[in-house]
């Protein structure tokens, strides 16, 4: 992918982000904060690249620590979101 494609994707993704976030119901703003936390840990991709590569031992260890930190966030973020969302119930009595 060339730079312009990436840029185009970014520009459109900003529009999507704008609309999709505004369409989140205010009652779920706390879960929104938790889940964006989880997905922003997609930088684990960069951490994995560093951790997987041969070449620099220090880079590898930094990468591994980053993998661990991002994993805390990913597992913790999705789990706490799931826990919160499970609490929202309709009246069924």
């Amino acid at each position, binding site marked *: 992918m060339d730079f312009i494609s990436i840029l185009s994707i970014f520009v459109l993704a900003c529009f999507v982000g704008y609309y999709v976030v505004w369409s989140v119901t205010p009652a779920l703003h706390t879960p929104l904060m938790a889940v964006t936390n989880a997905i922003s840990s997609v930088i684990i991709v960069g951490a994995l690249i560093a951790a997987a590569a041969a070449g620099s031992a220090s880079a590898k260890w930094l990468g591994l*620590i980053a993998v661990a930190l991002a994993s805390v966030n990913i597992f913790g973020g999705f789990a706490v979101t*799931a826990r919160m969302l499970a609490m929202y119930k309709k009246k069924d009595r």
Partner: protein
Amino acid sequence: MHEVSATPAWVLIAYLISGVCFILALRGLSSPSTSQRGNRLGMIGMAIAVGTTLAIHEIASIAEIVGAIAIGGAIGLVTAKRIQMTAMPQLVAAFHSLVGMAAVLVGAAAFLNPAAFGIVDAAGAILPVSRVEMGLGVAIGAITFSGSVIAFLKLNGNMSGAPILLPLRHVINLGTLVAILGLIAYFTQDQSPWIFWTVTALAFAIGFLLIIPIGGADMPVVVSMLNSYSGWAAAAMGFTLHNSAMIITGALVGSSGAILSYIMCRAMNRSFISVIAGGFGAVEGPAGGAAAIDRPYKRGSAEDAAFLMQQADKVIIVPGYGMAVAQAQHVLREMADLLKKEGVEVKYAIHPVAGRMPGHMNVLLAEANVPYDEVFELEDINSEFAQADVAFVIGANDVTNPAAKTDKSSPIYGMPVLDVEKARTVLFIKRSMGGAGYAGVDNELFYRDNTMMLLADAKKMVEEIVKALG
């Protein structure tokens, strides 16, 4: 040389699908009924991104990687399970600091081993554009980290919420920011390690400096803002790695943080700049009607409150920060159940900035099993107070203050508020007549004829009301 551009098509499609999963995850949050499916899609998206990355790289150290994921994952899961719902603001800040630190580490690793990231030219030097992206990514990550740590400490009460105002702070901050940007610019010319590490160190420092002067109660806005930054940092890394999943995520998270900050500022009727400049809450004492303490007011008991509500046809409950502090949500639901059994119509009215983070009240009420179709947003319920017999205000204050509608000199003037005073009787639970709300403004409602103050801890008071009702 730019090895990522030779990536096979299926990989690019996999990252795209992962990005689409993240979009759908946020989209699911448009209603509680679709939200759980959305969250699962988010997990799937993350699994796709991780799986794809592992599949296309030669891995020298699979055991260590699995170990790192296992350790991190276990810590995350246990935390998520144990955390109390009232501690969500802190938790979000803490998770945030981790994202920031991870971004710094990835940036550092990319600096130490650029070839692995495919960002070197034929001579082995790091591409200039990548140096800028890397510098910005590390700086944003470091600011996110140290800022979030301060936010965590303030929210968790390990550090005083009061703003700490250094002299000359605006000059120092500006100078540091300029230095960081200048060094990043110079970095494109000279790849020396000292530049990289100085940028990182300065960014850590400015994270502390920027957030320390901001009052504890403004932390939610700050947390959202840092959230937004971390999104843009992810997007910057996506540009470096030509990874559409990261770019889409970055745009989503960046928008989310920015929009939530905006919503909070608007609902508080404050400008974003004034929040970031800090110092709010530094000057103590009632800003509006002075000499508040001497005015007469009606004080009631739990029995009075129980009697009034039993007689009512319609009760609207207005929860606020005090309910969260006192953890009164469960007993509040019990109270509502008892009232409903007696034929009273009970609804909940949520102000957009009640509590200390967006959606704070909703999540606490949901925890206490209050069905979400009994919970209404300000615009949907404000006209109903006029028909209500009792407005039951539990630990809320600023969000009910009519000064926002009438007193142009009030710091909260212009903020939309709940019209509780239109109800036949207003019951106010708070601990003392002295304690003001987050904005530090006196609330004239306490002294009205149709108001009855219930002075006690919210949980204790509601427990007594439940006793009196039962």
